[in-house]
């Protein structure tokens, strides 16, 4: 069973719609004891870095998520669900992220912020999920991973930034595959089939 973490802030309607459309059953949960039951785990994200970490902490979800990832089962993070995998963010100084990857989250300093719209992803490492194409972004911040081996795709917005990571059982995107038309659904489909 696929579990979607509901920590209160995110609008999870679009991801559940996408899973239904692709023919997958899912469970939405905020229960820390349930996470270990999942075969696959999705962490969606809308809102602010500090707010998400705060909610995950309050709901005692941090350790269960880390344990799930340690177990080697597939994990997918979307938008802030990608950012919180890192150590910290300029958005919420002093707030610790999950710290599963070394690196930080910084703000775009050029162009209109947030970046809203369709932008191109280019695959950067060998992985089975991402091809070159357009996806939908809404973000003011982007990740800067220390270990460049985890970078799965890159995208240009006044500078080149990491738009997705892929490392062992962790896949996470800055963009919204659930809002990126057929191209985005294909990314989800490939992950769901893995």
């Amino acid at each position, binding site marked *: 069973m696929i579990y979607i973490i509901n920590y209160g802030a995110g609008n999870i309607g679009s991801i559940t719609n996408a899973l239904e459309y692709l023919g997958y059953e899912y469970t939405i949960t905020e229960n820390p004891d349930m996470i270990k039951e999942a075969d696959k785990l999705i962490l969606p994200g809308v809102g602010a870095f500090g707010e998400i970490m705060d909610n995950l902490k309050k709901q005692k979800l941090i350790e269960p998520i880390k344990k799930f990832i340690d177990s080697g089962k597939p994990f997918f993070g979307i938008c802030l669900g990608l950012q919180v995998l890192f150590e910290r963010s300029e958005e919420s100084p002093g707030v610790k992220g999950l710290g599963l990857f070394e690196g930080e989250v910084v703000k775009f300093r050029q162009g209109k912020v947030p970046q809203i*719209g369709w932008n191109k992803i280019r695959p950067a490492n060998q992985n089975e999920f991402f091809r070159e194409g357009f996806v939908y972004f809404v973000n003011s911040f982007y990740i800067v991973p220390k270990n460049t081996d985890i970078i799965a795709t890159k995208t240009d917005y006044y500078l080149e930034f990491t738009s997705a990571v892929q490392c062992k059982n962790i896949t996470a995107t800055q963009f919204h595959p659930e809002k990126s038309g057929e191209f985005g659904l294909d990314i989800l489909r490939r992950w769901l089939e893995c």
Partner: protein
Amino acid sequence: MLTKRIVPCLDVKNGRVVKGTNFVNLRDAGDPVELAKKYNEEGADELVFLDITASVEERKTIYDIVRNVSRQLFIPFTVGGGISTVEDMQKLLFCGADKISVNTAAIKNPGIIKQASSKFGSQCIVVAIDAKKTQNSWNVFINGGRTDTRIDAIEWAKKVQQFGAGEILLTSMDRDGTKKGFDIGLTKIISESINIPVIASGGAGDLKSISDIFEYGCADAMLAASIFHYGKFSVSQVKEYLAKNNMEVRL
């Protein structure tokens, strides 16, 4: 870099898509879910639904439309029209809308922008500005273009950005439905006065008028209704034209 977005707009009244000129003379243009599917297939980058239903009672149809569209289409879509409380917004987001557009409510109660953007995130909140040229500036109109607020459109755009709006949907009332081309002056000055994306609306006519609003009007996206509903151009025709003119689009 980001592509220029092409956004078909569906004005919905009592559950049907309608289209008027200068905000009046409404004609039937089809079923909202069917039109949404068609535009998605043609490559629309987003969709906007504006509920222009007069009575609160009949407005409930918009929730079903939002639900049906969000289950079948996986591109962003915005819902606007008559939304005046955070509860309304919550309900629409729950039904599957990605963004909420507010217009009259934002003028009457600017606090709603802040409230909504801190609750749902700025990316969710689009402030729609209906602007009409006066002697040497543009005024903001509300109530579907019936009431002149005498507020300067540029000043208002700056304010809503401060309050936390994520995007501005800027409609030129003078050009709406006329197919005479967008108001480039208005769009450019607003786009350059703020740091959030501007969706230009009102006046989409020939293909050149669309490339002009991107090239000279500094718009981030263009919204149109009539040219798409009545088959003057398909979304893909517009995009192919822009691509030929060296603009980045999602083909």
